[in-house]
């Protein structure tokens, strides 16, 4: 009798444990299902907002170009190329479809009993995927906006290849136009990352003056205005301005402008071939450096069948 009682207690305990486990699994499946719904909804919203913004930008600029069919066609083609280069299908697959498919698999009550401890991790992973997805959209939009800005090049303005790299963290990098309170610009934040954009700027001389970054007790300013980190901009040209390199180690920071014409040309050839075709390059960093002219001349010669020997 005693034995029976013990056995019954054991069965009861097992049943209670199983019931608890079932309830916990249901809770997890519900949480995963909610994550999947959120991911689907928010990712779809991102796509919708992106498509809307892209259409709005394109429409607006095409309206500005309405008198120039050739320019409008070039712009359409450019936008297509930018979207292609953004590799959005691949990014969608990795950050949208793959995430949903995974959530569907682990959320299937018949095939998998997740540990609830993993749900938060899965949620964080899905959110991270949406951040990546959004970043990809933002990149494409920024590229299109950059093209629209380039098309607005006015009298007295030049295009400038603004390239910067931060080893460490630079929250803002400020470039001032010498002799003017206005006309400067700010880039950042950069964290072990690069900035590479074509900016539309007034002709003149510019100086990489200041880098700021947040630290636990406030903000740190690194003033480079005495270092003569300058470049010039010629109107109507595609101006090469070197590469601003910022390197921070602990409390110490240094900045240089490096002459990296070959690297900048390589990126221009990949991303802005039409600018290289349509604009004459001005060397706004070291005008006497012959490399850019030498390279472009040799390239034209070899493409014309000049031979390498």
């Amino acid at each position, binding site marked *: 009798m005693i034995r029976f009682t013990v056995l019954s207690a054991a069965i009861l305990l097992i049943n209670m444990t199983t019931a608890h486990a079932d309830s916990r699994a249901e809770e997890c499946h519900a949480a995963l299902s909610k994550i999947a719904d959120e991911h689907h909804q928010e990712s779809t919203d991102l796509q919708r907002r992106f498509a809307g913004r892209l259409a709005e930008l394109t429409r607006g600029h095409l309206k500005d170009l309405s008198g120039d069919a050739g320019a409008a066609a070039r712009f359409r083609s450019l936008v297509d190329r930018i979207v292609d280069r953004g590799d959005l299908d691949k990014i969608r697959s990795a950050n949208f479809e793959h995430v949903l498919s995974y959530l569907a698999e682990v959320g299937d009550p018949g095939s998998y009993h997740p540990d609830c401890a993993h749900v938060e991790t899965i949620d964080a992973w899905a959110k991270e995927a949406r951040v990546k997805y959004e970043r990809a959209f933002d990149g494409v939009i920024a590229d299109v906006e950059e093209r629209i800005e380039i098309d607005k090049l006015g009298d007295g303005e030049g295009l400038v290849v603004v390239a910067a790299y931060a080893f460490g963290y630079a929250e803002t990098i400020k470039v001032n136009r010498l002799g003017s309170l206005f006309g400067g610009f700010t880039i950042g934040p950069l964290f072990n990352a690069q900035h590479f954009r074509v900016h539309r700027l007034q002709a003149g001389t510019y100086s990489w003056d200041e880098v700021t970054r947040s630290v636990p007790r406030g903000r740190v300013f690194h003033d480079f205005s005495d270092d003569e980190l300058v470049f010039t901009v010629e109107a109507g040209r595609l101006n090469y301005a070197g590469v601003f390199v910022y390197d921070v180690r602990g409390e110490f920071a240094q900045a240089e402008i490096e002459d*990296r014409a070959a690297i900048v040309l390589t990126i221009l050839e990949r991303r802005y071939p039409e600018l290289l075709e349509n604009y004459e390059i001005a060397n706004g960093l070291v005008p006497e450096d*012959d490399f850019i002219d030498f390279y472009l001349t040799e390239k034209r010669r070899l493409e014309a069948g000049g031979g390498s020997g």
Partner: protein
Amino acid sequence: MRKLSVTVVLFLALATGGLSAADNLPGAMDDAPAPEPSIGVQDFFRAGELSNPVISPDGQVVAYLARGRIFVGNTLAGYRPLTRELWRHELLDLDWISNHELLLHRRARDSGALSFVAFELAREGEGYRIERENELAIHGYLFDAMPQSPGRVLIAAYVLEDGRTSADLFYIDVYGSAYQQTKSRRRLNDRTRHLLHYVRGQELSLHFGVTYNERRPEIWQRDGDRRAWELTWTGPQASSFLPISVSADGSVVWALSDAVTDKVAAVAFDVAGASISQVLYEHDRADLNGIIMSPDGTTPIGVTFMDRGLIRFEALTPEAERLYDFARAEFPDSDVAIIDMSADQAAQLVAVSDSGNPGAVYRCDRTSRECDLVSPLYPWLEDIGLAPVRAETLTTDDGFELDLFLTLPNDVAGPESVPVIVMPHGGPIGVSDNRYFSGDVQWLAWNGYAVLQVNYRGSGGYGREFRSAGLREWGRGIEDDIETALDHVLRSQDVLDAGRVCTFGASYGGYSALMSVIDRPERYRCAASFAGVTDLTLLFNGSRFRHNMRLRDRLIEMIGDPDVDMPELMEYSPVYQYQRLSRPVYLAHGNKDQVVDVEHSWRLRKMLALADSPVELHVLDDVGHGFALTDQVEAFYAPLMDFFALHLQGVGASQNATVETGDGPTGGSRAASN
């Protein structure tokens, strides 16, 4: 000030040299080194088992740096770590400041700031423990250890004013506050003359100082501590003047200088007459790099210099003749260099190496006539049998004597069986190769290649005329010297295969490799460049050089002035001569190189790709103008060895295409073959 002279010797004896000497950082070495099951490239570049060995003034205790720690001990008790691992700092130097106190000089890895740490030691069983320690945040160098004054030293703190470096001298209680003790009112000098070196007289008086003006040494003197400094002598030409010590009566300062000689010589500077009164010793070929003083520090008794790639000691007194006697008798078949001595010079630390052995440090006692091993330098390489380095001297057609070093692999199959890698050193001005252990040379030899190094015109250690002969000879006289040396060894060494020669170097050596292939494509099968210059005009273009007139003037002196010599600079730049580069080229460059920007390799790669010439470019992340970690060395050498195997041994598949790199202003963060 005896330390000054032996420091130079120590550096030369233990320097791993070459392009890839890696620091001993975490991950580079296990705590207790055990023989590897097989030898790999990292083994040739791991930091030595010890560095900076120093012996206490009484000769009883030896201390050294190893694996980020200080080790202390003696022959009987053995050598044990005194400190934990100090990885946040690069350990630069170690000095005894009394019989029981050490001063560590170090540099912070993140900020680069220099500082000192003083340790007072106490016996604990057979070993030692730290009784007390104190950090001194002073950006400077140890000027005088003052071993007769425990706990007290003279430290020179660097001052950078108006683009000139000078030094303020402070009398420091090593257990006190650096901040309090380096206030301006505590300095022993005044700062009016930008003095860099001093000579200490009796007590703490400073009456003799050296500075440089337009690269000429200036001697400043004063009659008393409170009197004004007066300029008493200016060197007749751009030269060096390094005071070593002072005579007992204070009338003569002993110094190393090339102010009045072609080679750096040991000279006596007459204090009263304010002139170099005597050249004590000038070698006919070599600059001196050290003066050994008598035990009381008042009389020079010997000099040291590099002779055909090895340190040599020349005695100036009969007593000094006997300094090396015992160590040489103990190691008759090896190269022996004394790297530190006790105050009475009876106990010596001796570096011993020979052609097949990477070396070891011994403590020798001239009184008891015993030598005991402190530590081997590279124990993990002892069993593999390093390749011997042979030295030769030859004379060029225009009369320059060149030292060349040929390293042949150990296993030679027969005549014309060994492919050759010519390895020009960097610099080019004032730098030189030697015969001591080099990871690069030994790794290449281990892989079956003969390695040729040449101290071409412009190299350091052979006097001013030889050094100056390399100015504006980039791509010209320097490479002619290398070709002369190459032709010579190909003629004289029948095991070398003249049909299988490549050239490979770093920095200037990379440039030289490219120019040699441009000039003599029939001689070379390939060229490899790490951190190499490819465009002489580009050297002037970074903001660091554009706004620093001294750097710019120095560059102009070395290669020419872009304002007037632009056509010539382009004529001797591989970038603008790309059509003549018909041999396969391997380029590697760190994306944090602040000496030769990564753009150099990009420019050449871009031009060669345009011409569809075979080129590989490997951009190395977080690598500067050299390697800091053995992992980086391995990442560099793995594809390079494939490149050499392909072009010198016909092993592997031809890439015959450019290597694509990342798309970014730093030159990319990845490398992939297409």
